[in-house]
């Protein structure tokens, strides 16, 4: 079914500390329900218990300290969301990224995307994360054990 060029809905939030799974966005599912269209894909990134150093050693860590540069960080996340939403034809994007300290195992990043079919959502998630790591001003500094 052709979709009448829907405007993509984008929401970006920076969260102080870890992101609770319960706080995960449900409005993306509402968008899908309203459009009666297809797929919701959610990526959640959790902090790992070790970091690979520059000389390729693995060191155990307590967690990561995230730094952002507002409002540029939110602006760049919004821009990236819009660009890739248009490119892949997705309906809604919800981004949450932590700043401050997030301990091992806790969630620091949630990206949720709604689209008519799964293929667009999968491509969006893959590309968005790759681009975010290159271009969006978010830094992490490991807190060592």
């Amino acid at each position: 079914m052709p979709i009448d060029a829907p405007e993509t809905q984008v929401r970006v939030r920076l969260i102080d500390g870890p992101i609770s799974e319960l706080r995960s966005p449900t409005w993306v599912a509402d968008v899908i329900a309203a459009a009666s269209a297809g797929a919701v894909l959610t990526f959640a990134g959790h902090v790992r218990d070790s970091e690979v150093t520059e000389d390729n050693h693995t060191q155990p860590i307590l967690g990561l300290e995230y730094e952002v540069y507002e409002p540029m960080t939110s602006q760049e996340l919004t821009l990236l969301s819009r660009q890739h939403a248009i490119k892949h034809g997705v309906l809604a994007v919800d981004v949450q990224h932590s700043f401050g300290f997030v301990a091992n195992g806790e969630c620091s990043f949630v990206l949720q995307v709604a689209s008519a079919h799964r293929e667009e959502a999968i491509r969006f998630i893959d590309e968005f994360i790759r681009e975010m790591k290159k271009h969006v001003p978010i830094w992490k500094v490991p807190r060592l054990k």
Partner: protein
Amino acid sequence: MVSTSPVNQQSNMELQVLVFGPQARMVGTDRLTLKELRLPTAANEVLSRIGGTYPELAGSLSVSRLAVNQEFVDATALINTGDEVALIGLISGG
């Protein structure tokens, strides 16, 4: 009345550049200071001056960009007095 020196060009200026994350840890501050600059000056000239003044950062400047007033700029963009300048490098969100 052509002049090689624009009326509003200023010499001997100090420019502060915000720095974050691992790069801030390398230099022990979140604010770089470049002295005796002639403003306006191009972004690539500022990057080059950062490398000279903070040799700890030289290795990471090739993967860094400058943001001026919270937007990424090209190497040739001019930086003026009063601009908010930030060094955006070693990004690794997610």
